[in-house]
């Protein structure tokens, strides 16, 4: 029994070599996906059927129940000849991988062949094939949700087909005594060798599939990694400096001989081999680059008659040219250079394609972001420039009423209004101004307002000397004070007071605006600054606008804080003293 088992293993070794070669064929690997159509079922059945027929001949010849050594080709067999071996392995694998139909199909092919081959117990030997294929197909479906069944399970399922074979021999025998003897001597070795062979085969196929999937996963990861790393460079636009950084990044990540980046007409950066004659600023003149620019499709230069470089001694013989699109138009090219055309595999092309798409998308995202902030800024400017029309009318009205009785006051008002409007216009064009300037603007505003409110309003300033030059977004303090006057002190007949306190605190300017009015109604204090308010006076955007601009410029820590006091309320916010820096990082 031991010797027989060893011999069977040797023979199965031959089959295994062939099986290994099969798993190396790419088209075979791709066909292993479980989505089966009639075409793939037939294809699989044929493949495994032929494999099975080969396995038949690799088996061991038995004459009159006795083992014989050496033989490879006998056709047809004589009455007392029988071949045993690994025929079932192919059929069972077919069933395990392709399901019952493939199992049955390949089993039938083998069965027909065995019928022609003839020999002892031909019916049992033939019938066992389709039955095993069916059995393997059904059990695989029943026991496993995996694409390729686990080798351990295959081992277990694999043991039953030889048992089925032996039983069929017993069922279709004319000479039970003789068959029992055959079953007893060959049964166990067949069970052991077949099940192990099936397990090894499934392990092989799993390995092959894993390889394929892992390769793909690796490439995907690499492309994503590059896209992620290139994002900070792309944000700064596409110029000589960033192109250099990008080219360096691509060359390091892809481990290529050379990488170059260009815009529509010129090379922006070239890194790696050939940088002696590939220089930034060179014109793009080869045909493939023009083609890539024109079509927007990826170009692969790997033919000997296409030259990627006209320089005689250039060792860069092949390239992939990846167009980069921005908002649909090709704005640049990436050249991935290779030394030999053979180095460009399907993987590299797919990677380049993915990379091109990713980078293009990144550029679009960056552009969209930029556009968004431009629009936002423009919107803010418009709002800033608007003088509350009520304020203008009221002031004009005040001037009109005082122009006869108090001409000097009227003059003063007109001067202040002019000042106010001039600063207004000026502020609109800058995004940051000195605190001093902002206060001038505020004072001009208050001068006008005070005339209307006469003795109702007192304004106190408290300001640390060293923060005069701190930069602050324009129109931040004035709207808050305006809010105090219009809402907080609205119904205060006299004695209305406003405190404006500006102090430095831990590297920040703390700005507090306090009044002694009626305070902020509780139902809106939470929403204040976070959403637009309904307002009968003004445009209702004042505080919201200020808060949003502060957050936009300096981050969350600069937001407005409201607190009710008794009486009145206080608004506080803090901005960094080193404003220029704060602006950069925001």
């Amino acid at each position, binding site marked *: 029994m031991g010797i027989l088992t060893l011999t069977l293993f040797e023979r199965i070794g031959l089959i295994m070599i062939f099986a290994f070669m099969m798993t190396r064929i790419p088209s075979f690997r791709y066909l292993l996906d479980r989505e089966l159509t009639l075409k793939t079922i037939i294809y699989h059945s044929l493949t495994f059927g032929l494999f099975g027929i080969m396995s038949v001949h690799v088996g061991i010849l038995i004459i009159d129940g006795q083992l014989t050594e050496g033989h490879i080709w006998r056709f047809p067999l004589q009455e007392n000849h029988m071949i045993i071996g690994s025929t079932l392995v192919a059929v069972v694998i077919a069933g395990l991988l392709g399901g019952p139909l493939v199992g049955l199909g390949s089993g039938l092919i083998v069965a027909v062949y065995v019928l022609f081959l003839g020999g002892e117990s031909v019916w049992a030997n033939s019938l066992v094939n389709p039955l095993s294929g069916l059995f393997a197909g059904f059990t695989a479906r029943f026991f496993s949700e995996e694409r390729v069944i686990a080798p351990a399970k295959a081992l*277990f399922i694999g043991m039953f087909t030889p048992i089925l074979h032996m039983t069929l021999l017993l*069922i279709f025998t004319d000479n*039970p005594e003789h068959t029992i003897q055959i*079953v*007893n001597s060959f049964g166990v070795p067949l069970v052991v060798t077949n099940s192990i062979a099936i397990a090894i085969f499934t392990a092989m196929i799993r390995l092959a599939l894993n390889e394929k999937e892992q390769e793909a996963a690796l490439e995907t990861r690499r492309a994503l990694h590059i896209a992620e790393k290139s994002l900070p460079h792309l944000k700064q636009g596409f110029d000589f400096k960033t192109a250099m950084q990008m080219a360096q990044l691509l060359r390091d990540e892809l481990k290529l001989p050379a990488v170059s980046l260009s815009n529509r007409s010129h090379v922006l950066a070239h890194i790696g081999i050939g940088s002696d004659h590939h220089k930034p600023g060179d014109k793009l003149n080869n045909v493939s680059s023009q083609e890539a620019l024109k079509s927007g499709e990826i170009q692969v230069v790997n033919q000997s008659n296409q030259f990627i470089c006209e320089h005689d001694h250039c060792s860069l013989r092949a390239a992939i040219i990846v167009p980069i699109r921005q908002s649909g138009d090709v704005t640049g090219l990436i050249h991935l250079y290779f030394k030999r055309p053979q180095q460009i595999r399907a993987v590299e092309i797919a990677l380049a394609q993915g990379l091109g798409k990713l980078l293009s998308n990144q550029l679009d995202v960056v552009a969209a972001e930029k556009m968004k902030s431009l629009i936002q800024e423009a919107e803010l400017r418009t709002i800033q420039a608007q003088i509350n029309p009520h304020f203008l009318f009221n002031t004009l009205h005040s001037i009109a009423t005082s122009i006869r009785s108090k001409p000097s006051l009227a003059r003063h008002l007109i001067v202040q209004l002019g000042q106010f409007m001039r600063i207004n216009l000026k502020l609109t064009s800058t995004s940051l101004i000195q605190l001093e300037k902002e206060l001038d603007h505020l004072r001009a505003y208050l001068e006008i307002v005070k005339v209307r409110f006469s003795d109702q309003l007192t304004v106190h300033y408290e300001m640390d000397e060293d923060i005069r030059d701190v930069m602050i977004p324009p129109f931040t303090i004035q709207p808050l004070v305006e809010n105090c006057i219009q809402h907080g002190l609205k119904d205060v007949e006299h004695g209305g007071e406003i405190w404006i306190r500006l102090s430095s605190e831990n590297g920040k300017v703390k700005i507090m605006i306090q009044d002694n009015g009626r305070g902020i109604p509780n139902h809106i204090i939470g929403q204040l600054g976070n959403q637009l308010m309904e307002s009968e006076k003004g445009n209702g955007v004042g505080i919201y606008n200020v808060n949003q601009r502060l957050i936009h410029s300096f981050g969350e820590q600069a937001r407005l804080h409201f607190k009710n006091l008794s009486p009145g309320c206080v608004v506080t916010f803090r901005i960094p003293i080193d404003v220029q820096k704060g602006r950069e990082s925001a």
Partner: protein
Amino acid sequence: MNLTNFIFFLFILFGTLIITYWAAKRGKTTHQFYSVSGSLTGVQNGLAIAGDYMSAASFLGITGAIALRGFDGFYYSIGFLVSYLLLLLLIAEPVRHLGTFTLGDVVFARFADRRVRILTSLSTIIISVLYMIPQLVAAGLLMQLLLGLEYGASVVIIGTLMTIYVVFGGMVATSWVQIIKTVLLMSGTFLISLIVLSRFDWSILQLAEAVKKATPFGNTFFMPGHLFDNPLETISLQLTLILGTAGLPHILIRFFTVKDAPAVRQSVITATWIIGLFYVMTMILGFGVVAFVGWDRLNSVDSSGNLAAPLLASTLGGDFLMAFISAVAFATILAVVTGLVISATSSVAHDIYNHTLRQGKASEQDQLKVARLTAAGIGLTAIILSLGLKNINVTFLVSLTFAVAASTHLPLLLFTLYWRRFNLQGAVTGMITGLMASLLLVLLGPNMMNPEYGWMRREALIPLFNPGILAIPIGFLGSFLGTILSGKSKLTGNYDRVLIRSQTGWKDQ
């Protein structure tokens, strides 16, 4: 143990342990552990139920009984099979709708009382352990005969394996061990039946002719009367088998492993078909034994008939087939005892530990830890008991198990599901009287009291080996009287809600 046997034995070991490993890897929740998260399909569960149910006694015992006693051997099968009708029509679906993991859940759904949960759980444990011991003892003896292992070694191996399956793989491993066993058992018996028939030109009539000539009973082989000569005993046996099966906890908890009522019906129908076909095949095997092994030879080798099927395999296919059938028998035993371990385990860990000791608030990890410890404890206890009981005839425990199931669980379940007036007092009285009656009747019966070999050497007070015909009515009567005599008890539970939920699966929370 010869090499052929050893290799097949290894294969079974390997296959089941792989499944346990795979089961242990998949999810570690109590749902997964007790009920496979209800993820089995109806057909899978049907196969598992069949695997849970068809014990080595069915496979080896009934084949032997048919070979030795003719038609009467087949009697067992009828009872076993009919009970599935009862399960299908009255019990399976409501049990699935009301319970989560155990029978205790089902009863608790109506009475919401801890005592009745504990009682149900206790009787579940009693049934499981009482059934496990004869299975293990028989398994030990069988393995001794089939594989040439020592009795002690056999019991320890099987006991350890069943414990490992449950401890590491819970219900997942149990189910798949049972499914594989069913597939093995069905294909094994089917193939041998085919060999038997092929020797008679595929004609059952020729086979019957040959059998007629080979047995000493001649033509009467196909008629009743060679095993059961006492009609009362026969009826009692059938009644116990039919009603007992419907109350076996390890079968009932299998209904929690599928997702809905159609799947429950599908499982019962699949199981019934498989078990039915299996018994038809045991008949062919039994005939085959008579025709090929010979009545006299079987009777002289093993008068209990347990070796009938392996002997047949050996005659038809030599060592190879014999080894295969022995491996199938080994798997058969494993699957049944594993089912019993998980049933006892879920009762202890879910009903007693979680719901009684911890008021249902134990964490998932604690529950699983206790369940694993319980399984290990039950396995160990069963091994030790079985080792000690080697030389004692424990087959009466099987009839005791069925009697207990039929006289406690069945009245409890039927009344809980279908009787509006049934109350807590009735439930408790019924359980206790049913249990006591079964125990007492077996104690006073010829299993225990026998002038020749009994534990008590005297004439039996009750002349019935199978006391079901007395115990079952007592159990029902206990429940009935307990309910009626407790007057207008308020403890009738939530009958309307239970009725709606058990019949439709609709949950109102």
